[in-house]
């Protein structure tokens, strides 16, 4: 009955394709159902599966599900209405080339984003550093066009995916421990072994985040212009760089000062001839 009523309604033609009101209504219903299913699927995914996935993976899967269902609905819509896109293919091909050239960097960023999602150079929350760009911070997210890094000063740095993908990436928090090194100089008249021993004792007693296994190591690096330069290497848990790096030299200097070991500064002796 309804079918006959709708069939009887007028049909019209656009670009050589005949449309009937009935077909258009069926198409609209298909699109409506498609949108509804996409939204429900996205909500169910976000509720049940997204919490166990890394945030950026969950976001991208969520978008994939949503737009995937909408694209399938659109294809069903075009089939039901009998729209023929073959005429658009030639024009679309030429247009595609033009758009391709114009949006080269955009496409490049999208493709790089896909590769980043596959390769996963860092996990969300990892501390990373891009030495070439002098950027360091916490890895936030890979989105369609860009990657976000929360710098240690709290600001967010947006980096195009292509640049991020082709950069050298140093992941600072992938290993359970990290090594920090510092250098300190003592005067030539001082006993090197005694200085090292006293530094070892201080590090052991005053720096609880420094690992005892592997224990701190010391290396006489250079007989410098004014001092014997000693490098100190200490390991610490990956999360505790801030407890070790900023304080190591302070403790080393205070320890040497307390022990009466001289830390010399550059001096120049000028001889004046008669």
């Amino acid at each position, binding site marked *: 009955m309804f079918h006959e009523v709708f069939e009887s309604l007028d049909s019209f033609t656009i670009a050589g394709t005949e449309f009937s009101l009935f077909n258009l209504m069926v198409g609209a219903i298909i699109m409506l159902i498609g949108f509804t299913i996409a939204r429900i699927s996205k909500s169910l995914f976000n509720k049940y599966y997204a919490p166990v996935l890394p945030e950026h993976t969950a976001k991208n899967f969520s978008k994939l599900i949503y737009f995937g269902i909408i694209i399938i609905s659109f294809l069903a819509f075009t089939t039901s209405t009998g729209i023929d896109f073959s005429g658009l293919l030639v024009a679309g091909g030429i247009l595609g080339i033009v758009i391709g050239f114009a949006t080269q960097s955009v496409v490049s960023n999208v493709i790089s984003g896909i590769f980043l999602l596959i390769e996963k150079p860092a996990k969300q929350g990892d501390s990373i550093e891009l030495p070439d760009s002098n950027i360091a911070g916490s890895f936030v997210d890979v989105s369609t066009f860009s990657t976000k890094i929360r710098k240690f000063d709290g600001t967010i740095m947006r980096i195009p995916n292509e640049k991020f993908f082709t950069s050298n990436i140093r992941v600072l928090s992938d290993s359970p*421990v990290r090594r920090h090194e510092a250098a300190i100089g003592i005067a030539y008249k001082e006993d090197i072994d005694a200085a090292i021993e006293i530094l070892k004792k201080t590090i*052991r007693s005053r720096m609880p*985040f*420094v*690992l*005892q*296994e*592997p224990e701190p190591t010391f290396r006489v690096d250079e007989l410098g212009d004014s001092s014997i330069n000693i490098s100190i290497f200490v390991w610490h*848990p990956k999360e505790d760089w801030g407890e070790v790096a900023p304080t190591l030299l302070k403790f080393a200097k205070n320890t040497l000062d307390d022990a009466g070991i001289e830390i010399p500064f550059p001096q120049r002796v000028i001889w004046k001839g008669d």
Partner: protein
Amino acid sequence: MQYSNYGCYEIEEKLDLFFPSVEIRIRRTDDTNFSYLRKDSEGNVVEKIIPSVSKKIQIEVAPIRPLNYPARRTNFVYLKFDKEVFLSENASTSFLVRCPIEVGIFLVHDSHKDSMDWFTCDPSGSRFGLYGAPDTGNLCKYHKVPIVNSELDSELHLSCVMRISFENLLDRGYSITKAIFPITDHMLYYKGEKSQLDSLKVTLRKRMAVEYVETAEVRLEQTDWIKSPSWEKDTQTPSMEMGLE
């Protein structure tokens, strides 16, 4: 100084507890509140308010696993023995070691024990260590421990005693210098001023050409020792395999 023992304490008006380098004072401040103050020898102070509708509160002082100071980073401990133990092929042995502990303060109410505070009485002995390579190894709490003779050789608020059994199924003798295991699998027990930890069973095995260590915890048999409340979430690893260093 006489240090306070492990156990439950009821407080109506005030309570003072003494530990090595740490003091705790609990006072009733008004009808519905108690104050809690912990002070260590370095001058660090922790203050809390404990609301309570009843006339008295009950706390339990108990040994807890040594995982919290200076920060909670791992479930593993690395016990480095003060002496090497040489185990010839197909031999087995067991010995006792002194394992460090921290002290937990739990608020007891309606048969629940809520974690209220923790501290260590030996901050300078609580350090980290790594077992394995920097990229793949395990971060552990690292302690140099002595081998002792008796289950009663624990030190009040500083250490407990743990039995470690070794079995060498390799075709050669092996020197044992350390034990690495997830201590969250192990429960602590106390009686008066003594404490002990569930035992550890270590088996040195060979599969194909690879030598490895298998560790498993062994629950302490039913005794009159009191089981400590857990500060951390307990784990239950049936057995664990690690590379042999």
